[in-house]
C-alpha cells in the first residue's frame, strides 16, 4: 500500500513470563483513525508503548515509513513523527499550561541540549517572550483544545478533563504524522466527550493518522474508520467498526462485559 505509514509484524512483548502482546500484526495508513479496543489488561497500552518506543519489543518488527524502527527510543520516534498521550496523564506539573506546550515546540531535530544551552547565552533561544512564531503556535494550540483561559495556570492545578486535552495539545505541538491516544476520554462527562470527539476529528482533518485506545464505545464507534481488537495480547479481530462490533469473537471476549460494550 502506497500510503501505509506504520506496519507491525509478529509484534510480541513479554513481561517476565507474561505475554502482554503476542504476535500482533497490522498496518496503519496515512490519515486514518483506527480504534484499538479490548478488555482490561488486553495489552492495548503495551502495544502503544511498543509503537512509541517506551520499551523494545521482545520479538517482531515495527516499520515506520518503510524503515525498521523496533527498539528505537521514544524521543527518536517522536522526532520521526510519532506522538502519543498516556492513559495516566504525564503532563509537566510544575510548568504552566503554556510552558507545557512550549516544551514541545522546540525543534529538537536541530537543537540538541548543548546547542540549546549555548545559544541561550547570546540569543533568547526558544524563550516564549522573544520567539513570536512559537508564541503564536502555542496560543493557536491552546485555543484549539480550548485551554486559552488556563494558559498561565500551573498544569497541576488543571481540572482532570483538561489535563487530558493538554496532553493532546502537547503531543500535537511536536507536529506528528501519527498520533497514539491512550484512553483520551476516560473519566470525561458527556459534554466533555462531545468536545473531545470534535477535537480528535479536527486533528485528523489536518492529515494526522490516529490510533486511539478507548473503552467509551460512543467515541470509538463514531470516529474510527477501522477497529482492531486485542484480547489476552492477541489480535482477535480487525475491520470496519460495525462488522467488528458484531463479530462473535469480540462479543465473546467481552463476555460478562456485554454491558461494557453497550456503554
Amino acid at each position, binding site marked *: 500500500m502506497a500510503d501505509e505509514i506504520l506496519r507491525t509484524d509478529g509484534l510480541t512483548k513479554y513481561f517476565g513470563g507474561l505475554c502482554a502482546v503476542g504476535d500482533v500484526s497490522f498496518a496503519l495508513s496515512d490519515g486514518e483513525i483506527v480504534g484499538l479496543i479490548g478488555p482490561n489488561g488486553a495489552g492495548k497500552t503495551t502495544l502503544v508503548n511498543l509503537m*512509541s*518506543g*517506551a520499551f523494545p519489543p521482545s520479538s517482531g518488527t515495527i516499520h515506520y515509513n518503510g524503515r525498521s524502527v523496533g527498539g528505537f*527510543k*521514544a*524521543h*527518536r520516534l*517522536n*522526532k520521526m513523527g510519532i*506522538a*502519543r498521550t*498516556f492513559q495516566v496523564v*504525564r*503532563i*509537566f*506539573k*510544575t*510548568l*504552566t499550561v503554556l*510552558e*507545557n506546550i*512550549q*516544551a*514541545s515546540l*522546540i525543534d*529538537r531535530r536541530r*537543537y*540538541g*541540549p*548543548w546547542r*540549546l*544551552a549555548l*545559544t*541561550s*547565552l547570546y540569543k*533568547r*533561544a*526558544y*524563550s516564549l*517572550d522573544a520567539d513570536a512564531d512559537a508564541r503564536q503556535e502555542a496560543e493557536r494550540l491552546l485555543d484549539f483544545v480550548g485551554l486559552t483561559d488556563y*494558559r*498561565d*495556570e*500551573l498544569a497541576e*492545578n488543571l481540572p482532570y478533563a483538561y489535563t487530558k486535552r493538554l496532553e493532546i495539545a*502537547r*503531543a500535537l*505541538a*511536536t507536529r506528528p504524522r501519527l498520533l497514539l491516544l491512550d484512553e483520551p476520554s476516560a473519566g470525561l462527562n458527556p459534554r466533555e466527550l462531545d468536545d473531545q470527539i470534535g477535537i480528535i476529528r479536527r486533528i485528523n482533518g489536518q492529515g494526522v493518522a490516529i490510533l486511539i485506545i478507548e473503552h467509551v464505545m460512543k467515541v470509538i464507534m463514531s470516529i474510527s474508520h477501522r477497529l482492531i481488537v486485542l484480547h489476552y495480547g492477541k489480535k482477535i479481530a480487525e475491520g470496519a467498526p460495525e462488522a467488528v462490533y458484531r463479530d462473535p469473537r469480540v462479543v465473546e471476549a467481552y463476555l460478562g462485559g456485554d454491558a461494557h460494550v453497550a456503554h
Partner: protein
Amino acid sequence: MTPRTTRRLLTAAGLAAFFTLPLVVTDRYFLHILVMTGIFAILTSSWNLLTGYAGQLNLGHAAFYGIGAYTSAILATRLGINPWAGLLAGGLLAAAAGFLLGIPSLRLSGPYLAITTIGFAEILRLVAMNWVDLTRGSLGLYGIPPLTPIPITSNVSIEFTSERNFLYVLLIVLLLTVWAIRRMIRSGFGVTLKALRDDEVGAESIGVDTARFKLTVFTISAFFAGVAGALFAHYQRLISPDTLSLGETFAILTMTMLGGLGTLTGPILGAVILTFFSEWLRFVEDMVKLDVRMVIYGLLLIVTIRFMREGVVGLLVKLPWWPKTLGKGGSDGR
C-alpha cells in the same frame, strides 16, 4: 510601576550595592565573609541548576568543587601554570567529572543516584587523602599562588592578594554564573530540564533525549562548581581534602533549600543568609562555648522542607511588591 520596571530597578539597585559593597567595607574579616558568601552562591546556584531545575539529586557537589580547587592548585604549584588559566582548567576538569557522574544518572534516580553521588565524592576525598605524592594528603596543599596581577601600565598592575580585589573577581564570576544560569533556565533548555524533572517519560514522548540532557546539565553544573573551587584555592591558598567533604555538600544543600530550591534567587539568598548567620553564630558560640551551628542547619533543613517548601523566596513572592515573572503560576523564574 509595571512589574518589569520594578524588577529592573531592583536588579539595578542590587548590582550597584553589589559592586560598591567592597568599596565601603573596610573590615578585612567582613570582606572575607563576603568572599565566602560569593563562593557559596556559585556553588548553590550550580547545584540548584542540577537538582532544583533538572531534578537530579546530587549529593556529591563538593567533589566538583574539590576537583576544581585541586586541579588549579596542583597546576600552579607543580607546573607553574598561570592561576587564571587554572580557573578554566579547574572548571573543565570538574565538568569532565560531571559528565562521568552523569552517566549513572541515565539509569538511576532518587536514592540510588544520591548514594552513587555520595560515593563518588567519598572516593575522591579518599584519593585526595591518600595520594600523598600529588596532594600531600591530609596536610593539604599550601603555598598556592594568588591570582596573577593584571598589568595596567608598565609599572601599575592590579594585585589580587587583598580581599577587596579578589572579591571583585569573585563578584564578576558570580554574576556571570548567575546570568548564564538565568539565561539557560529561561530558554527552551530550562523548560526542557523542568519537563524532564517533572516527568521523564513524558519528556521522552515529546522528543527530549533525556540522557543527553542529563549529561549536559551535569557537565554544566560541575563546571561552575569547579571554577568556584579553583577561585577558593587561589584565595585561601591552602586546600585540604575537607573541601571535598560531605559537610560542604550539606551546607550547599541547606542553603539552597532555605533560599528556595528550583528558583533563581533562592540559592543566592540562602548562601547570604546562612554564611552571615554562621559567622554571627560563631560569636554566640564563643560566648556560650557550644557548637550549635550544625544543629541549627539540621533543624533548618527539616523545618524548611516541612513547612516552607518554596524557601524564603516562596515567602517573599507572597509580598505584594515583589516582582512576579509570570502570570498566576509564576514565581521567580521557577
